[in-house]
């Protein structure tokens, strides 16, 4: 069953066209990675799916509902949650307040279960988010998105700016979340990680899909070629 359908989506920043007529589907329970170089339009695509960027054309359909012109906060109550690039926590709120302010839908996730998945946050519970380390902030950002009990979790570069050992821990937690059946669409710069965690990979180049396929079936050279837009000899 298709959970998210993006249909000929066009996104612009003024004259700059970031996403050009992109169409794809994400099925229930799937984990899809969007990969591509900087400026390929990955983050814009995620933001358009979450409602943080108003598309210029095309449609976003979630669970058979056209959400293209729906404001972001209403998409959250339908079950779409975005972990934005740069984490974007509320700095003066404590960890617990950051989590509790985001509770939107009932379900498996609450403050307790989020803290169980990210035990590093337990001692930081009553500390202002501004005073956390990068890895702790990322954990809060993911936990905050989980608090709305999303059916579709959008993750934008969760490994950006974190030490490799922290990234490992974050991805271990994510693996647990994915195995529980949450549908995930993620943007990841690290190709190896993207191919490991995702069932399917979509590669963007200059706002267009240039390669799409099962992660297991794609060989790394083809992906690298599509990633950088290298013309390969026939």
């Amino acid at each position: 069953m298709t959970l998210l359908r993006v249909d000929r989506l066009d996104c612009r920043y003024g004259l700059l066209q970031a996403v050009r007529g992109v169409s794809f589907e994400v099925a229930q329970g799937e984990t899809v990675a969007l990969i591509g170089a900087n400026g390929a339009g990955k983050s814009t695509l995620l933001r358009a799916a979450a409602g943080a960027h108003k598309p210029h054309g095309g449609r976003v359909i979630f669970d058979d509902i056209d959400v293209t012109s729906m404001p972001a906060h209403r998409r959250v109550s339908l079950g779409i949650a975005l972990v934005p690039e740069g984490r974007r926590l509320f700095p003066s709120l404590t960890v617990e307040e950051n989590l509790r302010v985001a509770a939107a839908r009932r379900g498996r996730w609450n403050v307790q279960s989020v803290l169980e998945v990210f035990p590093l946050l337990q001692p930081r519970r009553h500390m202002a988010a501004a005073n956390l380390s990068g890895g702790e902030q990322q954990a809060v950002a993911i936990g905050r998105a989980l608090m709305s009990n999303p059916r579709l979790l959008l993750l934008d570069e969760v490994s950006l700016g974190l030490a490799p050992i922290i990234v490992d821990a974050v991805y271990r937690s994510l693996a647990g979340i994915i195995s529980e059946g949450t549908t995930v669409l993620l943007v990841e710069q690290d190709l190896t990680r993207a191919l490991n965690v995702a069932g399917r990979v979509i590669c963007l180049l200059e706002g267009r899909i240039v390669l799409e396929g099962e992660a297991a079936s794609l060989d790394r050279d083809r992906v690298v070629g599509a990633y950088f837009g290298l013309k390969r000899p026939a």
Partner: protein
Amino acid sequence: MTIVNAVLQGIFLGAFYAVLACGLSIMFGVMRVINLAHGDIAVLGAYVVFVIVQSTGMSPLVAFVVALPVMILLGYVLQLAILERSLKSGILTPLLATFGLSIVIQNLLLITFSPDVRSLGGNAGAITTSSWQVTSGLSVSALGLVILVVAVLLFGALQLFLSRTRAGWMMRATAEDADAAELVGINSRGVYARATALAVAIAGLGGLFLAIRSVFDPVSGPTQLIFAFEAVVIGGMGSLWGTLLGGLALGVAQTLGAHINPEYSALTGHLLFLAVLIVRFGGGRVSLRAVR
């Protein structure tokens, strides 16, 4: 002893300024909007209470409770009809829009109520006239004490609201990052409208105190705005407790000035404001803290 009395009266006066400044501080803290019509909204609140008192003969304090829903509704309308549109087009547009609103309110009040000077002091009963003579040079007026207690309760309640309730966290989250707030399911438009409604309601309370403790007319607003604005800036823009302290400091500065020479009252207040501006912004360090 007269100095002590001047300070005490300054604290009572300052509590009034703090109530006036509270709504201004909320709107700046949450939306980064400087509402130039804030003083006129307070005066409008005074007229709403005045109309209710005139037509029913009830005490102004009871009439304010009746006026409160009117002010809250007015706040929602102000946000959804005017501020929300102007917020979309940059930082200067809300300033212009509220400046225009200030002129509109003043002229509507002039047409409706004539330029006559009014007061509700006489209708409020014993509260305006009672006082306790502590010593020969020190007297505590009942009204001053009531305003001080209300101001402290008001700021305390707002502090509790912002730090303890989910609606308060939503307001702080939206103030800090409205886009991120939307992404966690917070209706930022709704939060903005609630913040403005709260600010307008508290402006109405300021208007009530103005009407009871002294006199008002359709063009009293800008003077109230200046004192409220000075209180906000002295206390640190966007900081709630700062606004209370800023109001008290302004009041004390004014009564101490008046103690030296009655002509110096407003002057010493302005001097304190300028001194704070120079100390805070003169060194090139700009601090705009969110409501905490």
